[in-house]
């Protein structure tokens, strides 16, 4: 009886060890794949965004406050030095100034590589503008959807300005559109070498510390300078253009927001 039990116990033990090692093998290949946090800091020329109460000035000296800021980024990819591309699956994110949780994006399961740049779209790709009822970030309940001319509003900036001629002194820039000639999807590519102090790759053979350990990126911190929307290739005069709610004038603002992102810095794990 005792012996029989032992056999059973042994079998169970062997089974457990086998399972555990299989599990361990599939989860733990240290240094094989990792998650990176993408953090976005919305600001106006380096100043924090505070709804209603902080006043900003554009390059032509017009004062404005911000009451609402939301935008989509999607299709995030990382490209390594050999040109290989890591694509973040299902990557549709609605960044909302009123919800700090939306400013941290988890890029999961990235294979180790020598990554030199990050790319993403501001907006939603055309396929997902035509895909009918969707959920999550793409749920029309987020009020980032045009119902009369189907498509997502990629970028919403609302505020007030004493120079605005709209009722209540408001201005509103609702930018969207996935079709020519008013396609407002913009691709952003940022060089991860921008951070010159430190080696910059997820897994850098040359990026060893003096003690021999490797540096690995744990987070990529981006700055989104909202001021650029008004002051880019086109300088927006709030007095003349306080409301953009369809394709008219939208591409010029999209050309401006394309350049609002920059790399602030990278954080590393040792």
């Amino acid at each position, binding site marked *: 009886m005792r012996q029989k039990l032992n056999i059973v116990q042994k079998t169970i033990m062997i089974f457990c060890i086998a399972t555990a090692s299989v599990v361990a093998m599939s989860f733990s290949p240290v240094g094989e794949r990792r998650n990176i946090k993408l953090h976005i800091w919305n600001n106006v020329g380096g100043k924090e965004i505070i709804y209603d109460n902080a006043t900003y000035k554009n390059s032509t000296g017009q004062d404005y406050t911000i009451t609402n800021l939301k935008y989509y980024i999607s299709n995030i990819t990382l490209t390594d030095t050999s040109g290989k591309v890591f694509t973040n699956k299902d990557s549709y994110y609605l960044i909302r100034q009123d919800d700090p949780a939306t400013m941290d994006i988890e890029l999961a399961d990235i294979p180790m590589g020598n990554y030199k740049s990050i790319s993403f779209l501001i907006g939603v790709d055309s396929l997902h503008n035509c895909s009918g*009822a969707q959920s999550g970030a793409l749920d029309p309940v987020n009020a980032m*959807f045009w*119902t009369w*001319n*189907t498509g997502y509003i990629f970028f919403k900036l609302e505020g007030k300005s004493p120079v605005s001629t709209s009722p209540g002194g408001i201005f509103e820039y609702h930018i969207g559109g996935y079709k020519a000639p*008013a396609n407002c999807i913009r691709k952003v590519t940022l060089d991860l070498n921008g951070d010159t102090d430190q080696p910059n790759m997820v897994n850098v053979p040359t990026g060893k510390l003096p003690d021999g350990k490797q540096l690995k990126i744990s987070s990529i911190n981006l700055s989104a300078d909202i001021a650029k929307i008004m002051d880019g290739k086109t300088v927006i005069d709030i007095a003349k253009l306080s409301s953009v709610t369809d394709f008219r004038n939208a591409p010029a603002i999209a050309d401006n927001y394309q350049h609002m992102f920059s790399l602030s810095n990278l954080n590393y794990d040792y």
Partner: protein
Amino acid sequence: MTIKKVVTISTLLCFVFLLSNFTEDNPYFKIGERDVTFQLPKGFPVPNYTFKNNKPTPAGFTLGRMLFYDPILSKDSTTSCASCHQRIAAFAHIDHPLSHGINGLIGKRNVPALQNLAWGQSFMWDGGVNNLEVQPLSPMTNPIEMNSDLGEVLKKLKHSDYYRTAFKEAYGDTLISSERMLKAITQFTGMMVSSNSRYDKFMRHEDTLSQFEFNGLIVFREKCAKCHREPLFTDESFKSSGLMPDTLLNDPGRELITGRYKDENTYKVPSLRNVAMTYPYMHDGRFRSLEQVLDHYAAGKFYTLNISPELLEARNLSDVEKKEIIAFLKTLTDKEFLYDRRFADPTYR
């Protein structure tokens, strides 16, 4: 009471009972598996909406039908989809040139028929909506139609015992989301297929047309079918029918969506199925009868902005030809569709 009387009365009662159970608007009519099977009618092209990510089920269709008939979707709970889309008019709105919404507000456009939507490549007179699933959002959030906030509608649905149960039956749990709501409505609207008019039966050699009607078909093919293409009676394109724009409505048509000058004053070519039932006509409902529409084409006094060569071919109709075409258009009335009890009002008691 004589036996004879008892028998007569009870027979009569039985009859009334049977009738009440089998009238077309029977509220007890339950949707079954067969009712939600989408069948491709003979001779029809492959539909654009294939229900790929939205497989119709009896419970899903039933939920969609309830939502279509329920004013809960409007801000003040007075207006349902069916307030504007009347079943007896192939879901157009008889006798109202422009749509009526909440607070008695008048919309900018005539309510179109709802039929064969699964073949639609775009929706609305200006084609502004690109997918049938998101179409309901347009009337729901339009300030002169239902004027709702999507979040508010979902809140109302979540507070309703009926809908909590109905969503659970349709989707397996009580989550009430916009995606589920929209997909359920689409199971209902996407299933609206008109393919059993006398014209269809004639084409399938199941019925005949009179000589007069047949003559109408021949003239129609020559003058009209380039835009109103068989078998759907639309080619889904945007064209001008040569109407003088209404200066009060100030409707730019397709240009509103594309911003292109060449699209100004063009509208989606409407299907002419069930057209005898859907008066008044045109995007602004300016014509009360088919005779008036035909007079417009025949007179050929077109507003020329962005008109196409096909329109010029539609001119020069004799009085007989006009009558023949109208007789033919009446063969497009599909009683089986109009009286299909799957689409009847379930809230009717």
